């Protein structure tokens, strides 16, 4: 399966959304764009799961939504991080770092004499 754009790794959507929103409040389309851009277009946010995901995060109290006028003078629904969301981002980010380091360490592992 040779595609240059991959779907997100399972379970990472919330982390990436939290990270994107930690930079500045954005509307849904902006969040998708920002993640695409930050991942250098390696990941693509599936539209289908972005909005249900935002709804779930609203219920968890990590983000808030409010209607504002956008740069193009249009009413848009902006999401911003709450204090609970910022804490959640720190927790998830450090969890992710530990997990990825561990996995990397496992992948680097070799037997001493090179034989298997």
């Amino acid at each position: 399966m040779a595609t240059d754009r991959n779907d997100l790794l399972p379970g990472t959507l919330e982390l990436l959304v939290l990270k994107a929103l930690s930079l500045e409040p954005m509307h849904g389309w902006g969040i998708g764009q920002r993640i695409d851009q930050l991942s250098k277009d390696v990941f693509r946010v599936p539209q289908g799961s972005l909005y249900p995901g935002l709804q779930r995060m609203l219920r968890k109290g990590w983000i808030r939504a409010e209607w504002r006028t956008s740069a193009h003078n249009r009413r848009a629904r902006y999401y911003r991080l709450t204090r609970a969301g910022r804490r959640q981002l720190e927790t998830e980010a450090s969890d992710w770092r530990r997990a990825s380091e561990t996995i990397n360490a496992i992948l680097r592992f070799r037997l001493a004499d090179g034989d298997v």
Partner: protein
Amino acid sequence: MNPIPDIMERLKALFLRDRLERELEEELRHHRELDEAAGISPFGRVEEIKEEVRDARGVRPLEELIADTRYALRALRRSVGFTLTVVATLGLGIGAATAVFIVVNRILLAELPYPDAERLVRIYQQSTPANRGTISVVDILAIRDQQRSFDAFGALRPASVSVTGAGGPERVVAGRVTAGFFRALGVRASHGRLIEPTDDSPGAPRVVVVSHAFAERALGGATAAVGKVVPIEGVSHTVVGVLEPGRNDLAGFPAVVWPVLQLATPGRRGPFGYRGIARLKAGVTLAQATRDLAEISVRIFPLWAAGFQDRKARLTPVPLLEAIVGPATGQIGLFAGAVGLVLLLAIANVATLALVRTSAREHELSVRAALGAGRRRLAWLIVTECLTLTAIAGAVGVTSAAVALKGVGGVAPGLPRLREVAFETSGVAFAAIATLVAGVLVSVAPFVSLFTGGSSLAATLGGSPARAGPGRRANATRGALVVAEFALALPLLIGAGLLLNSFLRLQRVDPGFDPSGVYSLALSLPSARYSTPAAVQGFWRRAEARAAETDGVIAAGLAGSLPPDNFGDVNNFDLLDKPVPAGTAQHLAPWSPVSPGFFAAMGIPLLDGRLFTPGDSATARPVVVVSRAWAATYYPNESPIGKQMYSGGCTTCQPTTVIGVVGDVPYRGLAGEADAVYAPVGADSQDVDLSLNLVVRSRIGAAATFRALRSALGALDPQVAPVEVVMSERLRAALGDPRRWTAVVGAFAAAGVLLAALGIFGLMSYVVRQRQREMGVRLALGAAPGSLTRLVVGRGLRYAGFGSAIGLALSALESRWLGTLLYGVRAADPATIALAVAVVMAIAVLSCWIPGLKAARIKPVEVLGGERGP
């Protein structure tokens, strides 16, 4: 995690649904516009994304529940007949069960209405748990002086006394009590004071405490009552206090007046007849009190051994609640069992109805399935409908329970604590649980049948071939329902059959005398004015003579006990030629003082020896006449005439000689043994009979006889207040309880059998409808129509057989409660059980016959032709 945002979002989703939808629409449109502007191909699946967002709001199940309930209510309104049937069947079932729950709760479980009531005990004289009796003055004094376990201890002596209030002399129930009785119970006076320790010593001025109701009725109100002097049995008593309103019984004894009980120094261990009531000290267990009292029993035994030889008897404390309600547990248990079975039958029946209805609605449900409703969604729809239905039935049930509770007294007037039974909120909780369980049970059958093949709906949903026969699991559900109905109906039938059997036997019991034309007046002489044995004997002699001379009276006599269930006294005796081993209890028998005329008035025949002569009562040689049952018990193969015994445990007294044998008359109830000993009135100079029944046989009817006797007695002593008894009514009243129980259980059984028959009929009709295609094929292939009828009926009989087997096992449990209520028939009576099983089988045949005939009349052309149709 902070739950507030979650709750807020969910509330918004519920109540601001339209706004959220608009916002979602706008947000997604904005997204697509931006995509287009940026040259990205806009995403599709807008509706799907919307659905996912709606799911993420977390209120989807609740929204569906509301929609389903609305839908269910609409559907139920469309089929009024079905709804009414279910609500009535289940509602009454839940109502009856709730009423019984409250009865059990209030009577058997609720704490007695006294402070710290769990510390209250009644003290019995007990040889074995089955053989408990009252205590005596010796016991009372010993407990009072020696016990170390109780905060308070008092005694009660039940009596029926004549009291003269505002309305003249009347006969009321009295409880003579010591001061400790009120102290132990912890009750208070609303006016005045209660009986104090100074009141109950011999010689102290006589005082009485009265119930609030009696003060209002006969003493001019509670305030005016205190200080009044009322004659009780001719002895002046000063009213010192009035109990709180509503205290109509104390320690389970329903007395109107509570005169002081003053205990004289005893001369022997007996007589018994006193109830001991005590309050355990805080921290003292029942076991410690039992040991304490047992030590007292052992200590006092040698002091009185001459008159009381039961070395094993122990004074035994029993929790007061158990003492009061213990005898009623059998009746209430039977009642609860019958009601529970009917409720289960109602549930099984409603499940059947729901199953049949679901199959009738298959088409509608198929359409919904085809339109995209998922399996889970449809299941929920059906469950919601069943739950809505049972919820309505539950509401009806709670209401009918409140009504039914008012009728408990009519069904079971003899229950203890009946006055405390009233609707309570725990009944609502019980009804709610019963409703929920019923709802779930009712939902199971249609649920299973819908999704386990066979139906066209299952085909739509699951893709299985629509023409296949009913699925194995759906079949099993149906079978289980029929089997359950039989299994539940059989114990009801057996119970009703046994009670009816026992009732008919009781009705046929020979009372030993012809009650028509026999009347009795219960007379009680005030001891104050009849203080010498001579005065008492003189009155009785004159009263009997006057009665015998009264116009219309054929014969007249006196007796202490009245058949069939009033043994005035029970006495112990030891036969000289067959003494009981030392240290064991002596024999007991109902012991009635009678005058010679009694046997003639009652029409009790002399079988052997002779009756009393007027000379017998005065002689120094005590004599008795015994009943045939007594003779058969103690002298089975010889004549008892001339045999001798020590009566009342008095071995130093002159022995008593048997001089005659008379016919059997029951005194221990119609179901009891007919053993009895008669002694001449006035034979015991120690213990004069102040209360006797004047029994006459008359040829002029009750009213005229009583009028004539009243005027004759009034001439002798105008203060005596007689109680009139018509013997034929007494006999009928003795059958009252068995008649009521038979009627109640019979009614439940009838309802149960009807429910079962309808349920089985409905179900077999349904089975025939389900299988009509298969049966049509069989007919087309040449099967005889009769064979299809036989097939259906045979299936029904097989179910009935299974059900009966389970039902028999169930009814074995029932016998625990039934046993004590039966007379002359065992709970495992084979004839009754066989009859009940036969009835169940007959019902099975009858209710399968019509569906069977329908099966035989299936027209293959129509059924199979129908395949082309929609």
